[in-house]
């Protein structure tokens, strides 16, 4: 059975341990099976961690590799964009270990391969990807779930993987068919928490399997929306504002997934060039909303209204 070949973020991952969140590559039908982009392995990294002599720091980069340690969870090594080695701590929660593999480790692999990982979700509207970025709790997943419930499939949740096609267009690769929602969002959608598993034992964020509304082909990116909740402004309507020029650069840099690990790996110039290129080719907006109500559907309507304003084909 093991190892298993999975696909996510436009890459093929061959893993020594099961990753139930990911889509399995079907060996007999899918040509992806012919090669592997990244190997995910289990090994004892304790001696190597000692040898790197990291001191009190929990993250260290050396020669195109990044090594980090998470208390009570394990050691994680990403090498040259080709290999993730995991050394789980005895007694660690498997789900928590996988959360780091699926999040930080995969994002670091993307950086090492020149794929830009933004922190956000993306949906598909009329053949174009729309990405939602924002800080933790800003409502990215909830907005994409609201759009999904209106029939716009989910492309990715949490990490938006961007590459460029031969014509210079930004392309979003599919993530994997799972959404992570907080309790208030489950309530907003009328979902029951006992139907879902928590992301890991310590937090009340739920993993929702979403195969039925997952889009598993890459799609060109039309726009990025930054979600900027303003809890102090009560009962204000949802507002959409265009973000121009330099502010885009700052916004996109600050919403790069684990952006602190970019400069640590000596990739600051790469990130700056990448977001400059991205800024020039897409539209960028900021959505503000009051924090008190469940406004995901109102926002979803504003997004689709915006996305479809150019689709008018009358004479």
């Amino acid at each position, binding site marked *: 059975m093991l190892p298993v070949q999975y696909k996510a973020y436009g890459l093929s991952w061959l893993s020594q341990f099961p990753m139930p969140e990911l889509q399995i590559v079907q060996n007999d039908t899918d040509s992806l099976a012919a090669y592997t982009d990244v190997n995910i392995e289990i090994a004892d990294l304790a001696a190597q961690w000692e040898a790197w002599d990291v001191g009190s720091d929990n993250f260290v980069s050396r020669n195109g590799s990044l090594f980090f340690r998470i208390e009570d969870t394990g050691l994680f090594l990403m090498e040259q964009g080709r290999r993730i080695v995991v050394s789980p701590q005895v007694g660690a929660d498997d789900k928590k270990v996988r959360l780091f593999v699926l999040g930080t480790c995969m994002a670091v692999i993307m950086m090492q391969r020149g794929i830009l990982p933004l922190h956000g979700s993306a949906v598909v509207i009329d053949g174009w990807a729309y990405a939602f970025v924002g800080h933790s709790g800003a409502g990215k997943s909830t907005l994409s779930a609201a759009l999904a419930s209106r029939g716009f499939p989910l492309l990715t949740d949490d990490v938006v993987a961007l590459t460029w096609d031969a014509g210079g267009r930004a392309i979003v690769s599919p993530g994997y068919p799972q959404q992570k929602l907080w309790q208030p969002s489950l309530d907003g959608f009328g979902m029951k928490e006992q139907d879902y598993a928590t992301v890991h034992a310590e937090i009340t964020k739920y993993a929702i399997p979403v195969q039925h509304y997952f889009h598993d082909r890459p799609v060109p990116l039309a726009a990025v929306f930054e979600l900027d909740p303003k809890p102090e402004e009560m009962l204000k309507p949802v507002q959409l504002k265009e973000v121009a*020029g*330099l*502010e885009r650069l700052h916004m996109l*840099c600050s919403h790069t997934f684990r952006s602190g690990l970019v400069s640590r790996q000596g990739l600051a110039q790469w990130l700056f060039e990448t977001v400059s290129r991205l800024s020039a080719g897409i539209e960028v907006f900021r959505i503000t909303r009051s924090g008190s109500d469940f406004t995901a559907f109102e926002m979803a309507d504003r997004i689709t209204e915006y996305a479809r304003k150019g689709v008018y084909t009358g004479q």
Partner: protein
Amino acid sequence: MTATKPMNGEDRVLRKEGNLVSDMGGEKVMMSIHNGKYYNLGSTGGRIWDLISEERTLTELVEVLASEYEIELDLCREQVIQFLEHLTHEGLIDVTRGE
């Protein structure tokens, strides 16, 4: 360089290193590592930035730009000085006074 003393043709200009520089739709954009600020130098500003990757006098700079952009020397000098003073103020270049 002080504001009271205008730039002289023999002043030598050199860009500081350590900034992130890129192209955004034909304009040169920059992020200063020192102050964390973002700048848009524009396309002409970007050309000046390229030219001062090695030390040049103001006179040299003005001559190159005036011929490349086909504008009068005096007008060019005035605009280049304004731009350089802005860069100085932001701590992005070094100006060595010449006599």
